[in-house]
Structures are given as C-alpha cells and as structure tokens.
C-alpha cells in the first residue's frame, strides 16, 4: 500500500468511526500539520456530504409524493361547493322554526333540529338514460332514502366523494340507522376537510338521537366557538340540553 492509499484508508476509518486510539492521535496531528492529508480529508467529507444531500433530496421527493396523494384524496369536486350555501340557508330557516320549540327532551330536540341535507344535483341532470349517480340523487331528493343509501354506498365504493358521504349519513339518519350514520359523519370529519362543520353538526344530532347528550354537548361547544351559521344553532341546543 503506498502512502496515498494508506492515508485514504486512515481517513476512511476516521470518518467511519472505526479508528484506533493510536491512529486517532496520528490523524489529529496530521490534520494540523499536513496540508495534503487535510485536503484528502476534506474531499472525503465533501463526498459523504454529497451522498447525504442526495439521500435527503430523494426522501424529500418521496414526502412530496405522499403529500400529493393526501391532497388529492381531500380534493372536492367543484360541483359540491354550492352545498355550503344550501346548508347555510337551510339552517337559517330551520333556526326560526326551532326557536319556537319549547321541548327539551333529546328525542324531541332531535326531531325539531334534524332536517336532511338538501341536494339539488339530480334536478340539474338529464333524465334520459340516467346513470347510477343520477338515480341516487333523484332517490334522495324524492325521499327514497333506502334506494339512495344503497346507491350512494355503491358510488362511494368506486370513488370516495365527501359530498356523497354527507348525503349517505343523512339518508341513514332518515332510515334510523343511527350507528351507521354516526360512522359516516366520523369518516367525513376525520378523512376529509370540506364538510367538517356539516359533519360535526349531524354527528351531534346522531349523538342526541341515541341519547348520548354528553358527546353531543362537546361537539356543539366546538361548533358554538366558530363563526358560521351552525354556531347559533349549536349554542341554542347547548342551552336546551343543559
């Protein structure tokens, strides 16, 4: 082994933490006194730093791919955006009506406050050769919640759309499938971003319907702290169950 090879091997052992006490003393001394040795050492460190930078860049790309897939999962089609406006107007109308209600029992409060979420998607579509999707929305609109729920489930199996999950939860509530409805709203709230407020509102109603007033109260407290139309209703319900 010539001097240069010996030096490289020594440096490699040094950077890999495999060096003996005796060798370490030699390395430390030569790093201070031998310019060529120091250059070899700096080159080795540069290579290792380059390897690590390359690794970090590769892992960064991997994280960016994960981020893309998370964001894509949470993307909502534009056609569902109008639901927010529909929900707000529904809740305002509901509020006036409910305000007159004097009943305090959970079951009666549920009946007073629950109105299925309004969907107008079916009315905007052609009825010639209707697709499964069209039929599902028409069934929901016409109050055939059993058919609507079956078709919504089938649509969700193909593509998880938060707007459909919201309607499925409502259909289940109408069919008295409270546990299933609860699960729909929990999924909507935990896996998607677009209908958090609606999901919480209906989840609170699910708890009220099943007599779990404490859980309903927790949700309404959260909603009451927001600045949206549901907050007023949530505060009202909180007062009534207290």
């Amino acid at each position: 082994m010539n001097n240069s090879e010996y030096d490289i091997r020594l440096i490699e052992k040094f950077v890999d933490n495999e060096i003996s006490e005796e060798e370490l003393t030699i390395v430390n001394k030569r790093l201070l006194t031998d310019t060529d040795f120091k250059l070899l050492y700096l080159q080795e460190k540069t290579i290792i730093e380059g390897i690590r930078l390359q690794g970090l860049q590769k892992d960064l790309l991997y994280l960016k791919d994960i981020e893309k897939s998370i964001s894509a999962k949470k993307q909502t089609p534009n056609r569902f955006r109008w639901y927010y406006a529909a929900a707000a107007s529904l809740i305002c109308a509901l509020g006036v009506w409910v305000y007159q209600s004097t009943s305090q029992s959970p079951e009666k409060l549920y009946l007073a406050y629950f109105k299925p979420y309004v969907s107008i998607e079916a009315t905007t579509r052609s009825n010639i050769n209707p697709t499964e999707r069209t039929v599902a929305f028409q069934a929901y609109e016409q109050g055939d919640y059993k058919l609507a729920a079956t078709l919504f489930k089938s649509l969700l199996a193909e593509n998880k759309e938060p707007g459909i999950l919201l309607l499925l939860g409502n259909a289940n509530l109408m069919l008295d499938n409270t546990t299933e409805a609860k699960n729909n709203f929990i999924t909507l709230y935990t896996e998607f971003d677009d209908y958090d407020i609606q999901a919480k509102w209906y989840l609170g109603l699910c708890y009220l319907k099943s007599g779990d007033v404490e859980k309903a109260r927790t949700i309404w407290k959260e909603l009451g702290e927001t600045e949206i139309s549901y907050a007023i209703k949530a505060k009202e319900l909180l007062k009534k169950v207290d």
Partner: protein
Amino acid sequence: MIQNELLSKIKNGGQAELGLIYEEYRLEFIQWIMKEYHCSIDDSKDIYQVTILIFYDNVRQGKLERLVSSVKTYLYGIGKNIALETIRKQNKNTPIDQEKWFKEFLIDETEITLEEDKAQAVKNALLKLGEPCRQLIELFYYERKTMEDIATQLDYKNAETAKNQKCKCMARLRKIVEREFTKLTTAISHEQQ
C-alpha cells in the same frame, strides 16, 4: 406510537416508516405552523417536510438515542427555527428553499460547506457508479445501516464481505468524483478565459 418504539422504527426502517411518521404528525404540525407563524399552507408543508427529514436524519445518525421530550415537542422546535428564519430572511412570496435548509443542516454536522457545483458533481458520480455500489454507499452513509443489515439486504455472505465491498465501492466513487471535479475546474477556467 410510543416514543422509543418510534425511534427504533426509524433506525430499522426505510421509506415506508418515513411515510408513516410523516402522516402521523402532519395535520397538527401544519395547523400549528400556519396559526403560530402565519405561514401559507404551501410554506407550512415545505417546513414540515424539512423538519421531518432533519428529525429522521438525526435519529438515524445516532444524535437522538433518547428523547427527553416528546417527538411533537422536538419537531416543533425544529419547525420553529425554520419558520422564524424564513420570516426573517425571505420575501413572503418566495417559496421555502428546502435544499438550502438541508445544506445548512449538513454544514452543522460536517463543518464543510458543500458548494452547489460540487454537490452536483457528487450526484453525477453516484449515478455513474452504478448498482449495487450506489445503494451500498447510500445505505451506509445516508441510512446509517449496519454492515450486518446491509449484508442481509444486499445478499452478501456476511458483514465482513459487505464492508470489503463498501471500501471497494468508495475507492471507485473517489476516482469518479475526482474526474467530475476536474471537469468542473476545466469548465470554470474556460469560463474565466
């Protein structure tokens, strides 16, 4: 996930584990950085990605054998520094320079400033090195796998064989890097003429 379990997952795992950890703290961290430092959603995600990779690397390099606080606190500590520096130095409309953060992090570790062209030269050299040498070297220097793990993963007879192979691969890489650096020097001198 229990803290020690998580550290051991990072040390023994690969990209799949990195993905799991990324998702575990993602939402809470991004919401926190947006609220606390008024960062945009895109900047918050960029900060989170750098934060997770620095944390991940610290664990793998053995700088974090045990956590004195929770993983969350540790991540928030890294994220806070990046957010504050970003606010201080950068224009709000400029995206976060993630590579710059990695380089600064590596400088802290190695005390060597990796210049842009040299980083590119090493990258080119790694590509020219080919397999399985490239993978072996990455497993050893980036993922910090033991020779035993590398031998298992790359199907070498034993740790000693893997170690010998690593030395040979490094020798080849040094030669390629030298050629890349020479090209770089030639290019610079041509530009100056």
